[in-house]
């Protein structure tokens, strides 16, 4: 894999506000990369820095091996899909898509209209060229914005929360289409999103950002299974946090977990540096289970009482009180055949496994 974008020590200030703090980041050619984080974490600023729409206060931005200092947005090999799509309302769909070709005097009018038609068919809008752009639906505007940005065959396509304005069904459909489109064109996509599920579904790698810094940079599975800090664990999916006491650190880590007892876990299960003493053990709701009547397991069990039941149709989320744990354990159960939905107050057994624990400082 070759590095396409390299950021070194990038800082950005708005007055006194430190929006980006010493960002070091390498994004590879052909990668679907996501910048994920809560609002105000600097992810959009970082995207705009790459696009050249914001100047850096310090540091270097390299694209394709070239330093981008002093290179304005119109001269960078990047194109952007804006959150609002920024479709020009006074131009037709075809004129919008062709906008980036204005400067290309080497192309004939026929070439241009052929390219426009290709770009439109790539996003599933064949034959929409003559339509007025302000009469389009949200999903269609999004596709026009994509076609308009891709017609220039940029090295990098920047997507600023492109799906946030769409409803849930449309969003899920567009996620799949974006992945397919990215594989088809082979262009590096950089997606900004605050939706962790969207990032997990679509990305090759994800950078989770907090307060202008990258908290963790990893592939979706690592990010989900081995978050390297409590804030990443809290931001990505749901996680139960249990008080823990580390006794011994080696190839195996010997740890006392509140409510579950003393266990030995693999060193890989501690993605951040640990010290002996107080720590936190994280466990995802779907890696715990309730032992229903008639079911058996050879895994470990702990007694609990159902405290809360949230029924989702395909899943039921239980909060189960376990002696020795402050917060009830959140447990996600698939509603398989024969499984009842338990009532609040039911005495139950919780199935757990130390292999699903993550130790955090």
């Amino acid at each position, binding site marked *: 894999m070759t590095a396409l974008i390299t950021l070194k020590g990038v800082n950005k200030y708005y007055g006194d506000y430190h929006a980006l703090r010493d960002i070091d980041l390498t994004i590879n050619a052909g990668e679907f990369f996501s910048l994920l984080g809560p609002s105000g974490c600097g992810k959009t600023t970082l995207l705009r820095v790459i*696009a050249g729409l914001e100047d850096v206060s310090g540091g270097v931005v390299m694209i394709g091996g070239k330093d981008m200092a002093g290179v*304005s947005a*119109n001269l960078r090999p990047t194109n952007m899909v804006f959150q609002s799509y920024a479709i020009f*309302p006074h131009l037709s769909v075809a004129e919008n898509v062709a906008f980036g070709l204005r400067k290309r005097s080497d192309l004939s009018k026929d070439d241009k209209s052929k390219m426009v038609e290709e770009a439109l068919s790539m996003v599933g809008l064949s034959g929409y060229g003559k339509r007025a752009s*302000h009469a389009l639906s949200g999903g269609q505007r999004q596709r026009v914005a994509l076609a308009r940005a891709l017609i220039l065959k940029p090295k990098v396509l920047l997507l600023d929360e492109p799906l946030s304005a769409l409803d849930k069904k449309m969003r899920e459909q567009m996620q799949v289409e974006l992945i397919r489109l990215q594989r088809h064109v082979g262009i590096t996509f950089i997606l900004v999103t605050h939706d962790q599920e969207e990032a997990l579904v679509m990305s090759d790698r994800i950078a989770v950002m907090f307060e202008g810094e990258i908290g963790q940079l990893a592939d979706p599975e690592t990010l989900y299974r081995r978050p390297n800090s409590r804030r990443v664990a809290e931001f990505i999916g749901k996680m139960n946090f249990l008080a823990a006491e580390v006794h011994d650190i080696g190839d195996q880590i010997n740890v006392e977990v509140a409510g579950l007892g003393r266990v030995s876990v693999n060193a890989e299960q501690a993605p951040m540096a640990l010290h002996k003493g107080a720590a936190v053990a994280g466990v995802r709701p779907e890696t715990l289970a309730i032992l229903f009547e008639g079911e058996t397991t050879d895994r470990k069990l702990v007694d609990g009482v159902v405290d809360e039941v949230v029924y989702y149709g395909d899943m039921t989320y239980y909060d189960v009180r376990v002696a020795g744990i402050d917060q009830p354990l959140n447990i996600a159960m698939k509603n398989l055949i024969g499984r009842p939905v338990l009532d609040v107050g039911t005495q139950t057994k919780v199935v757990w496994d130390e292999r699903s624990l993550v130790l955090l400082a």
Partner: protein
Amino acid sequence: MSLRIYAIAYLIFLYAPIVLLPIFAFNDATIIAFPLSGFTTEWFDALMTNTSLHTAVKNSLFIAVMTAILSTLLGICAARAGAMYRFPVKAGIMGFIMLPLVLPEIIVAVSLLVVVVQIFDLGLSNWTIIAAHVLICTPFCIAILNGAFQNLDPSMEEAAMDLGESRFSAFRLVTLPLVMPGIISSMLIAFTISLDEFIIAFFLSGTSPTMPVYIWGLMRFPASLPIVMALGTILVALSIILLTIAELLRRRGMARAGVKDKGGFL
């Protein structure tokens, strides 16, 4: 029901005096009084042959056109800055620019006269009036253009730049067409305000008066009162046409940008 009567009475009170203008402009008598004595276009003919009136109208048209252009240019700068950028004490600055809207014109007129004649020691001319009219028209232009610029998505220009255009051509290709209706209606409003402005023009005009100042001069001769009526009729008709065009353009601009009409300047 009583509200409806009130509304009708209010409108009559507001517009009845204006209706009198065309009535007496075509009345065949020098005295403005009922009963009417007959139909004539004599007063309009008199308008056509009055050369000093023609000079006054030319002055006024020149001043109004220049005022419209200059105050709209200033308005574009202010409205664009206000809509697209954040800067320190923005609210204070924007408020300060809008201040001439509520300043009594007589105060503006007198102080400008002092500035022009006493401080800068310049002669009075059409240009001194233009400067003063720009001062009072700019807030109106900003008010109209604000609407046009605020409806504009700031990422629109950025998108154009991202697609290879320079900052200026992004403005020309994207922003300008979208705010053009606002610009035209701003120019029409400024033109209208400048055309019938009296107090400032009265203080600041040189040897050659503007149309309102000339009309005021005519008023001293009762015999010429019907001529004033005829001129007034033409002015009212022109004003209505211009303001209607301005409003239509504003609405078309809103429709073009695909936004809901939230009630405009008029």
